[in-house]
């Protein structure tokens, strides 16, 4: 690791002002992505501003038809939150599948979506549920937030404070784990909103990051059942291909995971 200066912020405003004062600052949440990168000397921020102790940024709350997860809430807290399990059980289940226990105790939803790894779990949920990303400056619909591999709508120094999810009528998640990293080799989140809209998002599959799967949405709109997806054909072109999964395999997984997610949603 290169030399760096550590700051522990106690409020969002303090964090933003610290960021403004340093030359090349990075926010630190769970550190599960940032710290390995720093240890390998692939990043060398002058200052590291820790968000994980900001009280206003931690917690899971359900109010009316909205479930809000504050940005520095660790995955473990989401997985075990009664509010999350009641409002959107598929989302709590998704959090329980992230990495391993050590990663779940430290890693946060804010860090995960800010990083926007093409194989991360949360982006699929945000996209399928039509969530809104709240920052210290504005609200960004999930659709506009994710902009391709490791790229988001966040501006320099902008802090994610929370994510709010409209509670759906039904939702389900199915994940094929990457055998080494435990990220998604391919995973699919399916949701039926209370207004009847059907949204399906796949992560780990596309070369351009998390994506909606229109063909499956259309099939499910006609018939909400796993078998409705049997006849859907997912093209392999544009999908990731690596030592753990060819693009053909991932195309198959998009279908199979979608079927299992629908079955899980009921």
């Amino acid at each position, binding site marked *: 690791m290169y030399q760096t200066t550590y700051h522990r912020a106690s409020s969002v405003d303090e964090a933003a002002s610290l960021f403004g004062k340093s030359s090349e600052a990075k926010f630190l949440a769970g550190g599960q992505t940032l710290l390995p990168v720093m240890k390998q000397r692939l990043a060398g921020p002058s200052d590291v501003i820790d968000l994980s102790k900001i009280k206003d940024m931690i917690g899971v709350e359900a109010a009316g038809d909205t479930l809000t997860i504050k940005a520095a809430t660790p995955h473990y807290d989401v997985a075990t939150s009664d509010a999350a399990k009641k409002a959107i059980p598929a989302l709590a289940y998704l959090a329980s599948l992230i990495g391993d226990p050590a990663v779940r105790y430290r890693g946060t939803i804010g860090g995960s979506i800010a990083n926007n790894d093409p194989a991360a779990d949360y982006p699929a949920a945000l996209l399928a549920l039509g969530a809104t990303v709240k920052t210290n400056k504005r609200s960004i619909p999930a659709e506009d937030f994710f902009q391709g591999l490791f790229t988001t709508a966040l501006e320099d120094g902008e802090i994610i404070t929370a994510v709010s999810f409209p509670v759906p009528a039904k939702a389900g998640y199915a994940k*094929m784990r990457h*055998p080494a*990293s435990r990220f998604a080799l391919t995973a699919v989140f399916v949701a039926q909103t209370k207004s009847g809209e059907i949204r399906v998002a796949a992560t780990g599959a596309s070369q351009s990051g998390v994506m909606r799967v229109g063909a499956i949405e259309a099939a499910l709109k006609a018939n909400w059942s796993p078998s409705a997806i049997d006849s859907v054909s997912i093209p392999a072109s544009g999908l990731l291909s690596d*030592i753990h999964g060819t693009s053909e*395999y991932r195309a198959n997984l998009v279908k199979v995971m979608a079927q299992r997610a629908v079955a899980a949603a009921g």
Partner: protein
Amino acid sequence: MGVEGIGARVVRKEDKRFITGKGRYVDDIKLTGMTHAHFIRSPHAHAKVKKIDSSAALKMPGVVAVLTGQQLVDDKVGNLICGWAITSKDGSPMKMGAWPAMAPETVRFVGQAVAVVIADSKNLARDAAEAVVVDYEELPAVADMQAAIKAGAPQLHPEAPGNQVYDWVIGDEGATDAAFAKAANVVKLDVTNNRLAPNAMEPRAAIADYDAAEEHFTLYTTSQNPHVARLVLSAFYNIAPEHKLRVIAPDVGGGFGSKIFIYPEEMVALWASKKVGRPVKWTGDRTEAFLTDAHGRDHVTHAEMAFDANNKITGLKVKTYANFGAYMSLFSSSVPTYLYATLLSGQYNIPAIHAEVIGVYTNTTPVDAYRGAGRPEASYLIERLMETAARQLKVDPAQLRRTNFITQFPHQTPVIMAYDTGDFNASLDAAMKAIDYAGFAARKAQAKSQGKLRGIGVSCYIEACGIAPSKAVGSLGAGVGLWESAEVRVNPVGTIEILTGSHSHGQGHETTFCQLVADRLGVPISQVSIVHGDTDKVQFGMGTYGSRSAAVGLTAILKAMEKMESKAKKIAAHALEASEADIVIENGEFKVTGTDKAIAFPMVALAAYTAHNLPEGMEPGLKESAFYDPTNFTFPAGAYICELEVDPGTGKTSFVNFVAADDFGRLINPMIVEGQVHGGLAQGIGQALLEHAIYDANGQPVTASFMDYSMPRADDLPSFNLSHTTTLCPGNPLGIKGCGEAGAIGASAAVINAITDAIGKNDLEMPATPDRVWRTIHAA
């Protein structure tokens, strides 16, 4: 046996310090004035080192020195050696390229060191390393073995034309051809044995400390065999004579073979410590472990098996290409030859065998012994062949094995080994019963109704352990003898120190070795301590690998114990005014049999040291030593059966049951044995399903971190169902065969046999990743 004797499930003594974080590993050691080394490693798989400019680095804070490969040459430090000479079929010696500890001219794999920065701290050394400018001229590289042997392939070493190290043969070609000419059926199979990265939990580390006044070096290192390290460092690398070099291997966190070898880093640390006049520490990180710890396996094999009309095997032909990586590591040459092809008879009566092994250089990390070393490759090949044959000949795979089992012992195979004892039917019976083999068809049908593909796979392995008779291995080209030494020191108060040349790096020697003493003397194991891993304390030893510590190391202790007991009995007899022949040892006392006369062991010890009243002419003291050279290998064997389900939608494998029935001869501590089997099975299953060290066509490693290299985790593994069928090994007095590698040797074939059974297609390589299985299921 007593509560702590042979056969007792004694809780491991060493776990107190390991579990409470009090283990003392090399990296825990801090010496006054210690500097830290950071190696500058090649990013290229093949390149010329044109220039190394360290001028900027030398001006950076805390930098003590930047040393290069050329300086090693200038100081006449020797190249790394390979200690087992193999002769090709044309009679020529194996062809080896020089391996300098840091490359002065040419780098041949990604991660090979070219220079080292020595600085006041690890971080400062790393900072400075970034300022060292190395000018490389890239050369064409070849990582794939098949590509490396083609005409026109990039050449690694001028000494080895065609990138060929050797072309070695074993067995009787004429007899084998004759068997094939008469065969009723011939079964053919191509298999790849995937390359693995060993990944001991503790990365390699070294601290070298040169004392200028005494001209003496101390090396703390992560070694499975500190004496062998000292021998090689002194005899071949010109570091220091043996009496001026102390090697200490303190607590070592796993080895699996990878810590047998002498690596460039410890050599450089020793040499650098003298140059800079301060202790030098190097601790590898995980990336360095992936890049530089010797890898395992990496074979490509074509094999054919001939059967007569009664399904009896009549002949076996094998041709194997073995990838050695860019250099020949310490014992690498022996692994695909004498540790592999000599086990190709498996558990079967095969009258004629012929095997050819071609060793190949590629621009990849060197390959050497890794848990099982050659024997997993042999066992996997034979057991895949048997399964393939059963499918082709349409007979039950268990029955085909029984038809061919060796049942008479001793049995001389056509490939050197003479099996001393075994009962292969007994282990297969036990495994089949444990898994309810007979009920499998019904379970398969049931699974099918739920959309799952269920399969069952058998693997009957045999291995050669307890290496080895020194004379035998010497005649095959080994540069060392493979005996073991021991010393029993009884203190005046009756506590006992056992000095052993075996080295424990997870095996539990501090417990099992004490159990032998407890068993013989009836003293509690708390009265006994095991001393190992320090060349200043233990006179000499050959170390721990090849499941040899109990069969060879413990037998040496037994021999020394017998000598000590014989003297102690004389002292006791003298004190009790009885005849030596009437003295028996029971519960910590020396008794005159048939009487109530007895003297406690501590009193015998005290008598030996006070020397006030010893038998006429007896020397004071109670300390004996022994060297034990085995008369044969030992032959652990067993039957593993795996039942699993494949999800046809994803290709993912889930275990239903895994049974292992092993014959390890006598068990000292069944709990520790089970732990060894669990770990071995995890590695065997890891190889079958998950692990693969991969290079791209240019020799860049693709799997140099745990984010890409799949290590097996607890939830990848089934709950194991273990049992033992025992035939005592006649070759050593304790009847021990060894248990350290069995799981890794036998498991992979059981898993692949089960998956191929489940999916109804025989053609499947390891690792059977979900993607690969899914594509195999859906292949036309």
